C-alpha cells in the first residue's frame, strides 16, 4: 500500500514507519536537504503535546515507587528503553475541568492546556482560554515558517453537539490561539506536508516557479489593500470577519517572506492521504513533526491521538468495541482489559516517536535533547471523568529537564505548574500561567 509516493518501496516504507530501524536510513538521506550546518548549531527548543483521549486505566499506568528506580507498569512498559529521557508525573490536577456546566469530556480537553473552563455552548460563541502552546507559538512565530502545528488522527467532521451540549471545538482540538479562536486540527498528512513544504511543484523550472511566486505575492499585496478599503464600510461584526481575513493574509505573506529567505527543499514526495492502518497513520503524523522540528519549520505542535470522547475501534489489537463506551466500564473486567490494551497501544506508538526524536541529530545532541514532549490526557479515570491525578509523561530534556524518574507531586498540584516548566524549558520565560502556584521543577 502506498500513501506517499507509490514508486519506491524503500522510501515509502520509511515514512510509513514500520519500525524505527527501517526508518533511520531516511533521516540520513534527508539530512543534506534539511539541516544546514548553521541550523544544526541553533539553540532551537521544541515543545509538543501528544494527547490521549478518554482517560487511562490508572492501576496499570501509575508506578508504585517514586524516584529514580521506579518500576515500569504495564502501560508505560514500551517507554522503558528511554528511562533516562522521560519523567513520569502523577498528582497533577486540572481544576478548571471541574467547574461550570458541560460534558465531562468537553470540559476536560477544552480546559486542559489553558486552565480555563470552557463556556457551556454548542453555538458559535465558544470561549475558553489561550493555551500555553500558543503562547510559545507566538514567541517563536517570527523565527519559524509555521508558528505551530495542530494535528489530529481522527476525522473531526462530526456534526451536532460533541458532548452533551458542549461544542465540538472543545473535544476536537487542544490549541486555542485566543479565548475565542480554537485552532482546528489537521488530519490529512498530505495537507500537513503542504503546509510545511508548500504546494509548488518542485519539478517546474526555477524561473517559472519564481514568476508564479511573484504573482502570488502581488495578489496578496493588492488583496490586502482592497480589503482594508472594503472594511471601512462595514458594521462591527463584519469588520471582525475582515480583520480575521487580513490577519490571515499577513501571516501568509510573512511565511512566504521567511521561506524566500531560507528555502527548504521538501524531503520526499507528498503523502497521498490518510493511511487506512491506524498505527501507520499515527507514525506518519509523528514523522511529519520530526521533519518539521528537524528543519526548524516549527517549534510547537499539539497532536490528538483521537478526539476526546473518541469512539474509534481498534480491531487490529483485538478491541472491536468503540473506545469511549468501553471507558465507562462500570467496573467490568473485560471492558477494563480492553481499555488497557488501547492505552498500551497508544504508548507503543508514542515510544516510536520518542525513538525517532532521539535518533535524529540536532545541534550538539538529538532532537529529544532539545524538546519537551508531553504525553498524556486530561482525564485520569475515564469512567468517572476524573480530572485529578492526571496521567502524564514528559519526554526530552529541553531547558535542563533531567528525566530518569517518577515524580509523585503533591495531590492536586495544578497541572499549570508543569506548563510553566515546559514554557521556561523552551525559553519562554514566565513565572506563572493560569492557576499555577509555581513551577513544577523537573531540572533538579
Amino acid at each position, binding site marked *: 500500500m502506498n500513501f506517499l509516493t507509490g514508486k519506491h518501496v524503500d522510501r515509502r516504507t520509511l515514512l510509513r514507519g514500520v519500525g524505527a530501524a527501517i526508518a533511520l536510513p531516511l533521516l540520513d538521506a534527508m539530512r543534506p536537504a534539511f539541516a544546514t550546518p548553521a541550523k544544526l548549531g541553533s539553540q532551537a527548543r521544541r515543545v509538543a503535546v501528544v494527547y490521549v483521549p478518554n482517560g487511562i486505566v490508572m492501576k496499570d499506568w501509575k508506578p508504585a515507587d517514586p524516584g529514580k528506580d521506579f518500576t515500569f507498569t504495564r502501560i508505560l512498559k514500551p517507554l522503558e528503553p528511554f528511562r533516562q529521557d522521560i519523567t513520569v508525573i502523577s498528582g497533577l490536577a486540572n481544576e478548571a475541568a471541574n467547574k461550570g456546566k458541560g460534558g465531562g469530556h468537553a470540559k476536560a480537553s477544552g480546559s486542559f492546556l489553558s486552565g480555563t473552563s470552557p463556556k457551556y455552548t454548542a453555538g458559535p460563541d*465558544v470561549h475558553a482560554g489561550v493555551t500555553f502552546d500558543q503562547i510559545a507559538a507566538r514567541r517563536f512565530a517570527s523565527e519559524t515558517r509555521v508558528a505551530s502545528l495542530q494535528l489530529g488522527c481522527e476525522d473531526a467532521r*462530526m456534526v451536532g453537539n460533541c458532548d452533551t451540549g458542549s461544542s465540538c471545538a472543545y473535544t476536537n482540538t487542544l490549541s486555542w490561539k485566543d479565548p475565542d479562536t480554537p485552532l482546528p486540527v489537521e488530519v490529512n498528512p498530505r495537507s500537513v506536508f503542504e503546509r510545511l513544504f508548500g504546494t509548488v511543484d518542485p519539478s517546474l523550472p526555477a524561473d517559472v516557479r519564481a514568476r508564479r511566486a*511573484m504573482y502570488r505575492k502581488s495578489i496578496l499585496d493588492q488583496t490586502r489593500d482592497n480589503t482594508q478599503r472594503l472594511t471601512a464600510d462595514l458594521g462591527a461584526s463584519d469588520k471582525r470577519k475582515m480583520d480575521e*481575513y487580513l490577519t490571515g493574509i499577513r501571516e501568509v505573506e510573512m511565511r512566504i517572506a521567511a521561506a524566500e529567505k531560507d528555502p527548504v527543499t521538501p524531503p520526499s514526495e507528498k503523502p497521498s492521504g490518510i493511511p487506512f492502518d491506524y498505527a501507520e497513520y499515527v507514525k506518519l503524523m509523528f514523522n511529519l513533526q520530526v521533519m518539521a522540528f528537524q528543519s526548524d519549520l516549527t517549534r510547537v505542535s499539539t497532536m490528538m491521538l483521537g478526539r476526546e470522547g473518541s469512539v474509534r475501534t481498534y480491531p487490529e489489537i483485538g478491541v472491536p468495541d468503540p473506545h469511549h463506551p468501553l471507558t*465507562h466500564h462500570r467496573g467490568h473486567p473485560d471492558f477494563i482489559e480492553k481499555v488497557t490494551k488501547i492505552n498500551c497501544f497508544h504508548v507503543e506508538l508514542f515510544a516510536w516517536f520518542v525513538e525517532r526524536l532521539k535518533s535524529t541529530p540536532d545541534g550538539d545532541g538529538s532532537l529529544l535533547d532539545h524538546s519537551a514532549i508531553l504525553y498524556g490526557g486530561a482525564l485520569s479515570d475515564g469512567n468517572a471523568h476524573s480530572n485529578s491525578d492526571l496521567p502524564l509523561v514528559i519526554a526530552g530534556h529541553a531547558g535542563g529537564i533531567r528525566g530518569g524518574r517518577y515524580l509523585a507531586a503533591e495531590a492536586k498540584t495544578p497541572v499549570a505548574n508543569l506548563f510553566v516548566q515546559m514554557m521556561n524549558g523552551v525559553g519562554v520565560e514566565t513565572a506563572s500561567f493560569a492557576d499555577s502556584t509555581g513551577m513544577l521543577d523537573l531540572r533538579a
Partner: protein
Amino acid sequence: MNSLMIRVLRMLQMIILAAVACLPLAAETAEVFAYVQKSCVGCHNASVKSGDVDLKSLQTAKTFDQDREIWEKVIDKLKTGQMPPPGVPRPPEATTKSVTHWLETEFDRLDRMVKPEAGRVTARRLNRAEYNNTMRDLLGIDIRPADSFPADTAAFGFDNISDALNLTPALLENYVDAAERVVRTALFGPERRKPAAIHYSAPVRINETRGQSKLPKDLFNYDLTGLSTLHSAHFIHRFPVDAEYSFRMVLNGHRPNQSEPVHPALFIDGKLIKEFEVDATDLEGQNVEVRARVTAGEHLLSESYLKTYHGLPPSYHGPEPSKRPSVPLISALGKLSEKDIETMRKYGTKIKTDAIETRVDNRFESLDVGGPFNQVTTASPESLRRIYVCGHAAGKHTGACARKILTSFASRAFRRPVTPKEVDQFAGYVTLARKQGDSLEEGIATALQAVLVSPNFLYRIEHDRQAPAGNASVPIGPYELASRLSYFLWSSMPDAELLRLAGQGTLQQPALLDAQVKRMLRDPKSFALVENFAGQWLQFRNIEVVRPDQERFPMFDDALRLSMRRETELFIDNIVRQNGSVLELLDANYTFLNERLARFYGIPGVTGPEFRRVDVSGTQRGGGVLAQASILTVSSYSTRTSPVLRGKWILENLLNAPPPAPPPGVPPLTESKTGQDATLRQQMEEHRKNPTCASCHSRMDPLGFGLENFNAIGAWRTEDGKLPLDVSGALPDGRSFQTPAQLKAMLTGDRDAFARGLTEKLLMYAIGRGIERYDRPAVANITTNLASHDYQFSQLVLGIVNSLPFQMRHARETSQIAATMGERSK
C-alpha cells in the same frame, strides 16, 4: 396579509380566553407564585438553590418576560412529571395543569408582543460544501478542492453559521493554493499525476463458510449479481483525475471439484465493468485484471461472483448444475498426503482432488487500483467556454478579450456586477504577466486567482442600506437575495437566471420569487438541501464515519453503508423535489431500496443494484426515517444499540426537546445491584432510580427502547442475544406504546412540536445565524402556514423565503453609517 389576519385572529382568541378565565392577569400571576411558593421554593431558594435554580427571587412583575428560560424549564419539569421529585407532596394534577397552561398562554402572548426584527447576518464565509459547489458552477470542473481544507466549525448542529465560520491563516493558505490549482486545471487541464498503486484488503467476512459449505436454504432465489452476498468485497475509492485505472482482483477460497468455472466481476458504482471466468478449485492467489476509464472523484468499487451458486456439482441441487464428469482430473487421493495435494493445488489450477474439496467459500483477497494511465491532460471544453467568453478559438484570444473575460468571470464570482475599477485591477495582472514574458493565458490565470482569493468571493458580505424613516429593517439588495436563495437551496452560487432577475430588479416580486423557489427546488442542485441540511439535521452524514464491529456485523461493508445513505437521501430528495409532506419523515408507506438493502431489510421482490421506490405498507419495519438503517446506525454504538442515544436523537431532532447536559457529579452506572447478566433495560431502569438521572432518562430511554427491534446497524430482530425483546415504553406524561408502529403514531401526534423544530432548524440553516427571541413571530407564522398547507415542503421553504429575517436586514444606526461614510470620504 395572510399572516397578518392569522395574527389578528389569534389576538382575538386570546382576548376571549382571558375573558372566559374571568381573572385579571395579576391574579393569575399571584396564583402561579403561590403554587411555586408551596411546591417548589422549599428546595429552589437562595440558600439551598437546588439544581442551581432559585425560584423565590423570581417573584417579580416582569419575571415571565425576563426569566423566560427558567420558567420554560419549570413548565417542562412539571409537564413531564419530573417535579416535584418523588417523596415531596404533589399538588393536585388539575392545579399543575392550569398553572402550566397559564404559563404557556402567557409566553404565547408575550411572544406575539415581541417586536419582530430582521436581525443582522454577519458576512458568511463559504463553507467547504459551498466552496466546492461554487467552484463547480463557476468553472465547470468538479474537483472538490475544499475536501482537504480543515473542517468548518459547526454551531447549533450546522456548519454554515456565519459567526462560527472563522478563518485561520492555515485556511487562508488553503484558499490561495486552491485558487491556483482550480484555475490551472480549468485553463490548462488537470494536474499531471504519476501512477501509483493503492491496495485494499478485503475484510474476511465469510468465516462461517470457511471449512464448510454453508449454503443458503434456497439456491433458486439469491442475488445473482453477488453484490449482496458475503462473497463480495466493496471499497470506496477517490480517483484523483479522469483517466484509465487498472483493477487487479485477487481471489481466494474454494469451489467443489467438478464445478463449472466461477465468474468474478468488477462493478463500479453498481455498474458491471467486466465479467471474468476462472476455472479452479482452489482460488487462492488467482487473479484477474482489467483497465477502465473512470472520472475523477469518489466511486464505489465492488468485486463479486456472478451466479455464485450456479454450476455447482449436481449433488448440491442448485440451479444449472455442472455438466462436467465427476471423474477428477488427477485422482491423487491415497497416494499423496494432504499437504502434497495442498501444494499441488497451488501450482496447478486444474488439479482437482475429488474427495477433498467440497467448500463453496469463494471470496476475494484484495483489490489493487493502479493509475492514472492515459490521463486526460487537456482542459475541459466546458471550462474554457465558461471562461473565454469572447468567442475566439483556443490560442486566438486577443488582448482586448482580457477585460471582457475578467468582467464576466468576476461578476459571476462576486455574485454581483463588478465595477470598472475592480476590472482595472484584475486586468493589471494580465499586464504584469505579459511584461514578464508570460502568455495572455498565464496572465488571465493570475487574474482569476486574484478573483478567487478576494473576500468578495470567499465571503457573502451584505451591505448596509439606509432604512426609511421609522423602520428598523431594510430589504436586502436583489443580488444579495439571489445569493441567499441559491446558497440556501443549492449550497452554491446563483445561476444565470437568478442573476438576470436580480439585474432587472424583479426578483423580489412575490409571484416571480415564488416561481423561482419552485424552479430551484425541482432542480437537481436542490440535492444540496438533502446533503447539507437534512444530513446534518438528522445526522445521517455520520454514516460515512461509523465503523460497526466487523465481528458482530460482518455484512456491514461500504456497499451497505452507501446503500443506507442513498435510501435516506432519495427519500428526502423525493420530498424536496416532489413537494411531499414533511410529516412523511415521521411515517411513510414507501421508501427507496436496491437489492442489497432490500435483502438486508427482508423485503422481497427487489433485484439489481439500482434504487427504486418500494411500497413498504404492511411490512414489519414500516416507513419514515426511524425505519431507515442510516438513522438507526448513526444513533448506535459500533457493538450494540443505545436506547439512550436513540431516545436523545428523537428528542433532539423529531420532538424539538433536546435534553439538557447531565448535571455535574452524576454517578456512573454501577453493576453491583443488577449484576452483569442483566438486560440493558434492567440496567437502565436501575440507573433511573436515581432521581437526578431519571429527570432526563425517563424521557430518553423509553423512546429508544421503542426502537430495540432494530439492531445496531438497523436490521430487524426479535431478541437481543438470547433474551427476548421488550419494546414497549411509557413516557412520564402518561402516554405509552407497545410497538415501533405505535411509537411512530405517537410521534406523528406531536406534529406541532416536530414542525416547529424543523422550521427553526431550516430557518437557522437558511439565514446562517441562531434563532433569537425576536424571530419567534416569524417561526410561528411559518409553522402555521405549513400546517394549513398539508405540511408541503415547498410551503416551508416559501414561508422562510418570504419571512422578515430572510428578506430584510436590521439597519445600523444612521449616525453610525454617516460616521463611516465620513471616514471613507476623507
